[in-house]
């Protein structure tokens, strides 16, 4: 079949796949799920969801994305769009189960948990996030993982903007300390060698 390879979903760009999905081609949407499923699930886990819960929410987010695919104009990345849908869906779930208030109030015993690092004390993001309080983790993940602004995160979390900003600020300070104990010197050297 001439052109079969050319039109195979795997060879198409996300925007083209979105256009095909909007025209009703579910095979094209399936390819998008294959490409970005892990990123969406990963974000939800980083926000604090358990793996099974993250999978459920991610699944629902992709179904919602398929229903609303015509709204996606390709102005940003498809992955970012689905991540925002997923992040909001996860927050709705937390609010529905009244877990969000508890999260906001909860503080992690950060000093008790010493994430495992490499010989330079550097650790990966997942490990570093474990050192944040649930609220900090949620706010940082929403702003830097799902690409929401502080105001959008505050609205989605139903928290005052100042509270979200301070969670993000504290979270960033902790992450900076955990991700780059030598204040960037070691990391910069590594990045140059990479």
């Amino acid at each position, binding site marked *: 079949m001439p052109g079969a390879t050319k039109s195979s979903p795997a060879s198409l760009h996300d925007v083209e796949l979105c256009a095909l999905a909007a025209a009703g081609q579910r095979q094209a949407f399936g390819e998008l799920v294959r490409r970005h499923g892990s990123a969406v699930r990963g974000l939800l886990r980083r926000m604090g969801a358990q793996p099974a819960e993250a999978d459920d929410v991610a*699944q629902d987010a992709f179904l919602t994305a398929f229903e609303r695919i015509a709204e996606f104009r390709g102005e940003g990345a498809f992955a970012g769009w689905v991540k925002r849908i997923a992040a909001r869906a996860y927050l709705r779930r937390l609010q529905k189960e009244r877990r969000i208030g508890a999260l906001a109030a909860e503080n992690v015993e950060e000093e008790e948990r010493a994430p495992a690092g490499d010989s330079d004390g550097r650790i990966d993001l997942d490990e570093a996030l474990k050192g944040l309080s649930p609220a900090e983790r949620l706010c940082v993940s929403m702003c830097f993982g799902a690409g929401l602004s502080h105001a959008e995160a505050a609205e989605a979390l139903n928290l005052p903007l100042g509270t979200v900003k301070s969670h993000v600020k504290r979270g960033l300070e902790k992450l900076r300390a955990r991700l780059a104990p030598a204040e960037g010197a070691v990391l910069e050297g590594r990045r140059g060698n990479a």
Partner: protein
Amino acid sequence: MLEAEFERRLERLFADAPELPDATAFAARVDRKLDRGWMARRWLIGAAGGAGGVIGASQLMMTNIFTRVEDASESARVITSSLGQVRSSPDWMSAMTGGGSVVWVASGLAILAMAFALRRVIEEI
């Protein structure tokens, strides 16, 4: 400035999500769920269209509409003949008062149009 650099780096770290080992299985689950939703929607719309058609047709039959239309035709004929005494009526007036067969044809066409529209809706969705 260092702050901004760290924030950019953090965004990159968030974007660099590792591929999960069950990525294909997850995609297959979403596919299956989409399939189920798709089939359910088609059946639902088909059933709703069918039920609507049956209800509409039965209402048309049950409300004695044909008798009423014939009564109206009779009234129109009386009016037409009355008007004819004043001035001559145009030919098309008599065509409109032809009787119940027009109604049968119209309802048949309506059912056909409804079936066509329903089929298009199912195809579009």
